[in-house]
């Protein structure tokens, strides 16, 4: 055998080994994704560690995902990739609580990496400049825009649905944070109440317009990164959560407020902060 045919044989051997390695790696990944990982067969919600901002990924059976808010920047997509099955590049629903940059700043990067079927926006925010810019930006052939208001329901994957508790389609005298879309997620096992950045003033409307049974929940995403202006004892009386999530990062606003933390400790309500625990996964 001459030198060149020897090296060709060696090349073929190397390629065969490489092909085998690829095969093993691919199947290992598939098994890890489909069998070993319970996340594909049950519902989970991930409160993503996106720094000072809000983003949560609801993961439902059969690779259905709902992203609630998109954080501040590209960090969100990094966290999403960690929580999604590696072959899945579609987020079925994106719910936007409101258009502050720490809730929608990372949406451009999310849209670059993932196809989105539907974006859900509160009707009360429809005329805001940022909402109109977003609507102009999305590819209408791929993504629907759905406007919702109080008492609307969105079926993510039956029987899991999101019930809109706030805001009304037309709301006078409130703006910004108090118009945050508040959604109760039902049907996945535990109830999850996502509250955006709604503060005390908006919460008064929220409590007045909804039945106590609608507000009762198991997991509460505390509004506005644990700000003192969003805390009231009444909120806890009405929602009675088993677990409270505070989505917060390094900040100069004093979030989360000491009053809130003291209250949770005194009442022995379990709480988790994303700045301390990183991404928080809650099985539903």
């Amino acid at each position, binding site marked *: 055998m001459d030198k060149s045919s020897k090296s060709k044989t060696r090349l073929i051997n190397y390629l065969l080994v490489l092909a085998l390695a690829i095969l093993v*790696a*691919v199947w290992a990944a598939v098994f890890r994704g489909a069998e070993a990982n319970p996340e594909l067969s049950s519902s989970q919600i991930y409160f993503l560690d996106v720094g000072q901002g809000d983003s949560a990924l609801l993961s439902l059976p059969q690779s259905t995902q709902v992203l609630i808010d998109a954080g501040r920047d590209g*960090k969100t997509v990094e966290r999403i*990739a960690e929580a999604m099955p590696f072959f899945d590049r579609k987020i079925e629903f994106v719910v936007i609580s409101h258009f502050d940059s720490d809730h929608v700043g990372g949406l451009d*990067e999310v849209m670059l990496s993932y196809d989105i079927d539907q974006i859900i926006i509160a009707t009360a925010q429809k005329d805001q400049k940022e909402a109109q810019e977003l609507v102009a930006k999305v590819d209408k052939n791929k993504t629907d825009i759905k406007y919702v208001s109080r008492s609307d329901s969105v079926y993510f994957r039956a029987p899991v649905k999101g019930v809109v508790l706030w805001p009304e389609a037309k709301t006078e005298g409130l703006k910004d944070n108090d118009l945050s879309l508040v959604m109760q997620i039902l049907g996945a096992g535990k109830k999850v109440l996502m509250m955006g950045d709604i503060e005390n003033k908006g919460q008064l409307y929220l409590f007045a317009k909804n039945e106590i049974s609608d507000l009762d929940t198991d997991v509460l995403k505390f509004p506005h990164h644990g700000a003192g202006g969003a805390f009231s004892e009444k909120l806890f009386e009405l929602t009675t959560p088993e677990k409270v999530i505070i989505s917060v990062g390094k900040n100069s606003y004093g979030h989360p407020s000491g009053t809130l933390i003291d209250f949770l400790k005194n009442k022995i309500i379990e709480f988790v902060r994303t700045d301390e625990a990183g991404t928080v996964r809650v099985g539903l």
Partner: protein
Amino acid sequence: MNKIRVSKFFLYPATYILCFATGAIIGVKTSLSLFPAGTVLLGIILFLVVFKLTRYAALIVLFMLGNIYALFFIYFTNWQFLSGCYVGTISSQVNQYSEDKIRYSFSFNAGKAVVESSDKKDLGYGDKVEICLSDEYLKKLDGGWDKYYLSNYLSNRVYKDPPVKYLERGRGFRRSLADFSDFIGRRFYKLWPGDKGTLAKGLILGGSQNFTEEVKEALKNSGTSHLTAVSGYNVAIITVVVFNLMRLISKRVAFLVTAVLLLSFVFLTGLTPSVMRAALMGGAYLLSKMLGRPKMTMHFLVLAGFALLLANPFIVYNIGPLLSFGATYGLIFAGDFLSKIASGPNNFWKIFLSTLGETTVAQIFVMPVLIYYFGQVSILSPIANLFILPLIPFAMFFEFIALVLSFTNFYVGIFFAKLVEPVLSYIIFAIKFFGSSSYAVVIISSVNFWAVVLSYLVFYIAGRIIFRKINLGNRVFGDHVK
């Protein structure tokens, strides 16, 4: 013996071209007034002609022609417009240059302008638009920014958020290619979400816009910004790797595969000038490998550089072509020598070593340009690059394969992308690790352009001495004296 060398020296067309190029570069760099300099030079020419040294006289004439060419170019690109609304076309790709701003070049009958807009309309190459230009929208350019715009858009009239009216969608081959290139760029993010996607795209197409702040900062601190800064240097690297890998089969196959890859790359990226320039340089390297005659291809490289300079003398202000020229120069200069001395127990080891050697040489040769352009040096940069660079060619090669596979079947592409992911993760980890300390950065306020030129002369002379010592001088320089 000496006589032979002198006449050989004058046979090289590259010598004449270099004189023209030097004249053009000095013209652009200094905007030298022709009259006093010209008078002196004409005197010297007369002197040389009288004493029958006509070849030297020809060199000076060429130098002056280059100078005149540059000055005319400066004169003709100094557009001044009257306020008013003009109908024209978008004559460059529409780039997103910051989180919420796009930039493109607008050509119309009175000249060229650059438009920066925060109104992210769905615009593309060749679109017919009406833009109202007036001084209230004119952007003041500080520092070297006017040179940046001239080198990229052939205009330094930059208008910020002027009223733009969309008239008609662009058509034709270039537009389709530009759209396709845009599509390719987005595909990287689909295959690798987040920072890994930005890195994957940056390595092949350039751009670091979508990195998280943490990685952006780390890139600066670790002295690795060049990884995603431009495409020229990266094209040179991928040419080396593909050629060396394919050479295992045969030299002809290696040449064909790499040439096809380079051409498809040029088309895939939408015929953007930066990639075309880079591919031209890659072509020079390929030619040197195929012919095995570095000195001849060195002339081709000079010719290619000359063509680029002729098309836009302001190119000397653009880091892209400077990097690709520097890298290719290094590869041709020392590549042949490195592949000769690389030895190992088998072909694979030999190819691995020569690839490593060649990419390192390319890195050394672009270093002066990088320091000049970025104005800062990271103390950790050499170590960071040592840990990162050897993996770059392989990451690029395999991510390119994942990209191509994703067009046959998206999920096949994703599977392959997953296999490349650990490499990308490692690179990002290393960037973050070495970039975590801002104390590692030394800011150099200004580096003189001529110091950069001087450093290349030093490289050249040092190389000449080394090669002579090991009797390779005649291969690279055509020396007949041993």
